């Protein structure tokens, strides 16, 4: 494709049908550059084969767009019902602190269930600010983890500073106290993101 573009930019008097044939789908998709589109337009005024090729590509693009337009039309009221259901589920997740798991558990309820969910309709759903439910889940776990780690370390015999046992204890503390949470917490964050 890059070769085609450069051939068009530094073109000669008449661009060959081979180059035009490669540009035609891009023109039909509406993603060709101005130069490329102008080149194709110029060429097809003189070339019947490429004109038919362009017409065919435009028809295919039109068919795809019409198919897309058909599919975009959901049944009447579905989007509105989805919005209501969504507000309820967001509200429920925020109120109970269920977060991802709780919300996912209700992932299949649409239609009649959605309509039922509308019954008790509050004006808005509760909103958490900042880190949302994540801090509530990760924070206590981190505190417990560090407390257990401190308790275990305090009961260990204390080797002399600089000895191999002391270095091994330092390495263990670095891995268990820093590296493990650093690996685990971003994973939880990425789960939250997507």
């Amino acid at each position: 494709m890059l070769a085609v573009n450069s051939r068009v930019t530094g073109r000669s008097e008449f661009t060959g049908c081979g180059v035009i044939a490669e540009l035609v789908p891009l023109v039909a998709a509406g993603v060709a550059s101005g130069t490329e589109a102008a080149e194709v337009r110029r060429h097809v005024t003189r070339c019947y084969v490429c004109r038919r090729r362009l017409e065919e590509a435009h028809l295919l693009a039109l068919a795809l767009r019409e198919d897309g337009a058909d599919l975009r039309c959901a049944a009447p009221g579905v989007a509105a019902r989805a919005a209501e259901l969504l507000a309820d589920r967001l509200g429920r997740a925020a109120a109970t602190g269920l977060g991802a798991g709780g919300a996912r558990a209700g992932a299949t309820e649409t239609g009649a269930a959605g309509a039922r969910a509308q019954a008790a309709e509050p004006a808005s759903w509760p909103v958490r600010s900042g880190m949302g439910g994540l801090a509530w889940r990760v924070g206590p776990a981190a505190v417990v983890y560090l407390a257990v780690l401190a308790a275990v370390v305090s009961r260990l015999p204390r080797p002399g500073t600089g000895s191999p046992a002391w270095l091994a204890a330092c390495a263990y503390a670095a891995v268990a106290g820093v590296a493990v949470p650093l690996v685990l917490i971003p994973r939880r964050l990425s789960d939250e993101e997507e």
Partner: protein
Amino acid sequence: MGDGEGDLIGLARAGDRQALGVLVERHYGALRALLLRYGCVSASDVDDLVQETFLRSFRALARYEDRGHLRTWLFRIALNLARDARRRSGLVVTQADVKALADLPDFSGDPVQLVLDRFDGAVLGAAVARLPESQREALVLRFYADLPLEEIARIVGCPEGTVKSRLYYALRKLRGLLLAAQVEETEGARREQQGDGQV
């Protein structure tokens, strides 16, 4: 971001149901078309997947930075969900399929008539579903979600030139697949006729 979407996002973040409803209605159709033609769910399940897309997006609204790309964000989440659903359903195009597509013959009859004959949505959908994943993504985002090139590039995380190239190959293969479907149909009809003649 047009049509006061920034304000709507702000209201939705504060828990306003009406603002949330406007945002959902604005993007629902395009997400639905994208997921249907991506070939990962049936028509009966697509609304659940659209719902899941919105749920994931809006649950994270508190972390959303107002940079005017809500639509990009929504489609990226939808695409990730679609990829997962497709992988789970085992509908993966193999390398052999891709090679077979490249060897398809060119149109030989009246090209305009051939394309007009292929306007049927079901045939078109089946052909789109057989495209390699990266090309199908570019195609559905362009034609079914009606997104501009730069936004598609942001969603799939590629340079615009790569998206153009994928669109080019997608359309070329789609054309070949539609021809193959027509050839198959014609041969089937001919065999049927021959069978009737022998009886």
